[in-house]
C-alpha cells in the first residue's frame, strides 16, 4: 500500500484486511516448519499425482495385446504390429506399448512404471460425465459430486500432519472434482495473461472478507498458491496449447512438478488431460490418438525431470473414466466401452510389470459382447497405492476415501 491518494481513508488498514492477511501468513508459516519423518509411512515424504484422461482412453491401442490372437482382427486398420517400421514397443512379450510412448517404455524397463490392464471403476454405463464423476468422487455410483476422493483422503490424514495442512492441488481454472471438498484446495493453471497487482488483490480480499465468505475463501487459497509458485521460482510462460495438446500437457506437467516438488508445496495433486474421445479416425501408430499419447509421454518426462529430487518418493497414477469398444466402429474409431488401462509411474512404483488378469478378446469373453471385460477394479489399485504411500488403513479407505468398498482389498506391493 505505498500509493497516495487524496482520499484520506485509503491508508488505513481495516481489521478485516488484517485478519485475511494474518490467516494467509499463518498458512505460509506452516510451510516453513522443518519437516520431520512421517510416523505413518516411515521416513518417506511421499508425492502422489493423479492424472485423469477425460474422454475415455482406448486401452487396447495404448497398450495393445498383440499376443492375443483376436486383437488384430478386432482392430483392423488401426491395429498395431510388433515389428515393421512403426512397431509397438515391447513390454512383456504379450502386451506392447504404443510407439508414441518411448519414455514410458524406458520407465517400464527401469522398473519405474507398472501398467494395469483390463481395469475399470465400478461404473458400468457409458456416459463420460457420470463415468468421470464416479472415478473422481470415489463413490460407487454417479450422482454424488459434493467432494472427491483425494480431498477426503487429505481430510482422513492425521490432523496437523504436514500433508493435510498443505492441501491438495487441483490444476485448471476449473478444479477437477477429485480434489473438491472441505479440505484445503490449492488451484493453479498455466498462466495466460499478466497477473493483477498485489494491491488490488489485497483490497478484494478485504472486501470479500466483509461481504462474501465464499469468494474470500477462494481468493485466499489462490494467494497462497501464487506465493508458493513464486518462491519455488517458477517461470510464467504465457499462451500455448490447451490440455489436449502435447505442448499443453507438458506445460501443465512442468507447472505441477514445480509446485509439488517444492519443499513447502502440496504433496497431492490432480490434473486432467483432455481429448481422448476417439470416435472417428482414431489412427494407429500415427494420428489423433498417437498425438495425445505422445503428449502424455512427454508429460511423464517433464514430471520425472521436474520432480527429480523427490522422484524416488513419487507415484503418478493415470486413469480414465472407462475404455472403448474392442472392435473398431464404422468410422475407423471406437465407441464408449468398459475395460481399459491405468498407468503407475514414478520412482516409488514397483514397476517393470503388467498387472492384469487378462480376460481375452473372443466374443464370449467381451463385456456385453462388445467391450474389454474389466477384471481389476481401479479402486483396488488406488487404494493400494495411497495405503502404502500415506499409511492409511483399510477401514479408513473403505469408509471415508472410497465409501462402501470394504470388499475391495487394497492391492498389495505396488509401492517400493
Amino acid at each position, binding site marked *: 500500500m505505498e*500509493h*497516495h*491518494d487524496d*482520499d484520506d*481513508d*485509503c491508508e488505513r488498514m481495516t481489521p478485516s484486511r488484517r485478519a485475511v492477511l494474518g490467516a494467509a501468513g499463518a498458512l505460509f508459516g506452516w510451510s516453513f516448519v522443518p519437516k520431520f519423518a512421517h510416523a505413518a509411512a516411515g521416513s518417506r515424504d511421499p508425492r502422489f499425482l493423479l492424472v485423469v484422461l*477425460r*474422454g475415455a482412453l482406448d486401452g487396447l491401442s495404448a497398450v495393445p495385446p498383440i499376443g492375443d490372437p483376436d486383437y488384430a482382427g478386432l482392430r483392423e486398420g488401426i491395429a498395431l504390429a510388433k515389428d515393421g517400421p512403426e512397431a509397438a514397443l515391447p513390454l512383456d512379450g504379450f502386451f506392447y506399448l504404443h510407439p508414441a510412448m518411448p519414455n514410458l517404455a524406458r520407465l517400464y524397463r527401469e522398473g519405474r512404471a507398472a501398467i494395469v490392464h483390463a481395469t475399470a471403476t465400478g461404473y458400468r454405463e*457409458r*456416459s463420460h*460425465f457420470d463415468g468421470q464423476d464416479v472415478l473422481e468422487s470415489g463413490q460407487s455410483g*454417479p*450422482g454424488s459430486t459434493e467432494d472427491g476422493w483425494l480431498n477426503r483422503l487429505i481430510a482422513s490424514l492425521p490432523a496437523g500432519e504436514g500433508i493435510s495442512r498443505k492441501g491438495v492441488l*487441483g490444476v*485448471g*481454472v*476449473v*478444479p477437477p472434482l477429485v480434489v*473438491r471438498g472441505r479440505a484445503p*484446495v*490449492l*488451484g493453479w*493453471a498455466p498462466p*495466460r*495473461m*499478466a497477473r*493483477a*497487482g498485489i*494491491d*488490488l*488483490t489485497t*483490497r*478484494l480480499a478485504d*472486501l*470479500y472478507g*466483509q*461481504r*462474501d465468505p*465464499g*469468494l474470500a475463501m477462494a*481468493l485466499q*487459497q*489462490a*494467494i497462497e*498458491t*501464487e506465493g508458493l509458485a513464486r518462491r519455488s521460482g517458477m517461470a510464467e510462460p504465457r499462451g500455448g*496449447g*490447451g490440455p*489436449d495438446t502435447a505442448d*499443453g500437457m507438458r506445460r501443465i506437467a512442468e507447472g505441477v512438478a514445480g509446485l509439488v516438488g517444492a519443499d513447502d508445496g502440496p504433496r497431492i495433486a490432480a490434473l486432467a488431460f*483432455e481429448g481422448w*474421445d476417439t*470416435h*472417428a*479416425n482414431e489412427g494407429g501408430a500415427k494420428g489423433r490418438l498417437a498425438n495425445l499419447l505422445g503428449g502424455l509421454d512427454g508429460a511423464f518426462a517433464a514430471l520425472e525431470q521436474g520432480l527429480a529430487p523427490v522422484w524416488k518418493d513419487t507415484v503418478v497414477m493415470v486413469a480414465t473414466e472407462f475404455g472403448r469398444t474392442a472392435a473398431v*466402429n*464404422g*468410422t475407423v*474409431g471406437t*465407441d464408449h466401452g468398459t475395460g481399459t488401462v491405468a498407468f503407475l509411474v514414478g520412482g516409488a512404483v514397483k514397476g517393470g510389470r503388467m498387472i492384469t488378469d487378462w480376460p481375452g478378446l473372443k466374443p464370449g469373453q467381451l463385456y456385453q459382447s462388445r467391450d474389454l471385460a474389466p477384471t481389476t477394479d481401479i479402486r483396488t489399485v488406488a487404494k493400494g497405492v495411497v495405503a502404502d504411500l500415506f499409511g492409511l488403513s483399510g477401514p479408513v479407505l473403505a469408509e471415508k476415501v472410497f465409501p462402501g468398498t470394504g470388499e475391495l482389498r487394497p492391492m498389495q506391493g505396488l509401492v517400493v
Partner: protein
Amino acid sequence: MAEPDDLKAGAAALQRFGLGPKPGQGEAMRRQARDRLLAEIDFGIVAQPQGVPFSGAAEIGKALYAFEDDEKREREAKRASAQQPAQGMQVANAAQPADAQPAAPQNQMTPPRKAANEPALPYRTYREEVKARVDLALAAETGFAERLVMFWSNHFCVGATKSNMSRIMAGTYEREAIRPHVFGRFEEMLVAAESHPAMLDFLDNRQSIGPNSPAGRRRGRGLNENLAREIMELHTLGVSGGYSQADVTNLARIITGWTVVGREGVLGFPGSFAFNAGLHEPGATPLLGRSYDQPGRAQGVAALTDLARHPATSRFIATKLARHFVADDPPTELVELLARTFRESGGDLPAVYRALIGSDAAWTAPASKIRTPQEFLLASYRALGRQPDFGQIAGPLATMGQPFWQPSGPNGYADSNAAWASAEGIKTRIDVAAGWGRQAANAVPDPRGLSEDVLGPLLSSETRQAVARAESRSQALALLLMSPEFQRR
C-alpha cells in the same frame, strides 16, 4: 411509485435473467423489470447478428470446400516441387481418404498459419461470428433473450475446434439451429440442432452408416453411436432418463443417413443437411419400447419428437433451467413447476419462461450464482460502455476458460459455482478485471457514479467504500467489476 424493495428486486432480476445494466438504464428499468422481461417473451423473436460473412450453412459449405480444395492443391504443389524438382510430372496423389479430417487440437484455437498474416477462412469466419454475436448481446436491452440463447447454445453445444467444418459453422449453428427456436417449441429446436451440419460433424453422425444400408453392405463400414448417445444423455432424457445401450445403438440406426452434403452437391447444396437414403439402416427399429417404421428422415424426426415429449426430458430441462437462472441446488417446487409447465404445454418454451419469471422462488432466491466468464465479460463491457474487438473478447474468455463454442466435451460448459468460483478462477478474473479497468480508465471519469448507476440498490456500503478509496480509476473499476454484487446474480 416503486417501493425501495421493488427496485432492489428489479435490480436483482435484471442481473439474474439479463446481462446487467448499461449506464443510464437505471431506475426506470429496475422499476419495470418484470414487465420488460415478460415483454421480451411476448415479442417472441430473437434478434440475429448482423454483418456475418455467410448467411447460412449452404453458403459456408461452398466456401469451405473451395478453401479445402485450395489448401490441397497448395500441398500437392509443394510436394511435387519437393519431390521432382527437375520434371514437370504430376506426383501421384497419396492423399488421405476423402472423409479423413485434419487432426485439429481441441480446446484451443491457434489460427492456422497463412502466408500473408491472414488467418485461414474457417478461423476468420469464427472470429467474425463471435464479434457479431457479442455486439448483439452488448446492444440488447435487458439481455434476457441473449441469456436464453447462451443457455440453449450450451445445452445443444458444438465444439468449434473439432474440424474446419465445425469451426467455420459454429456461429451459423447458433444462428440457424438455436436462435429461431428460443421462443418456440423444444422439439423444433431439438430437430434443428440434431440435423444441423455443425452437430452432425461435431458428433460424427455424418460418417455413421447403417450396416444393412446399401453403402454399409458395399463398404463394410457401420455405425457411429456418438450423436445418438448424447441426444439421449445430454439433450433430452438425461443420463438417468431410463434408456439402455440397446436404445443408444437403435437411435444411432434410426438417424443413419442424417448427413452433410459433400462437395459434389449430389443431394443438395454442398455443406447443407441431407438425408442420404443410401446410408440409412432400413426397416423398423425399436426405441424405448416403441417401434419406428417411418420412411427415411421421418423415422428420426418421429423418434426425436417422442424423446422431446418424454417425461424425463421435461424434468431434465426444467432442472437445468432452474439451476442456470436460480441456484446450483434449485428449489424443488420451482423445478416441478417448470417441468409440469413443459409437459402440459407440449414443450412450449415461452410458457416455461413465463412460469419461471412468474414464480416467487426466482425472485426471492438470494443471488448465489457467480456469473459465468461469458456473462462476466458481457456484463462488464456493458457496464463500461465498451465495444471490444475480437481479441478483447477471445483473449479474456480463453483465459477464464469459456471461449465461445469451445467446451471440452459435448456436455458444454459447467453451470455451477464449484466450477467457476474456484480459487484459480477468481484469481484469473481479477487479472482480467485489472486489465479492463486499465483499458476503461480514461473513458469512465467517475467510477463511483458508475457503481451507483449499474448496481443501484444492490451496491453495498463496503463496495461503495472500496471503490471510493481505490488508488486509481482503473483500480476502482476493477473493484467494481470484481465486487460480490457484480459477480453474483
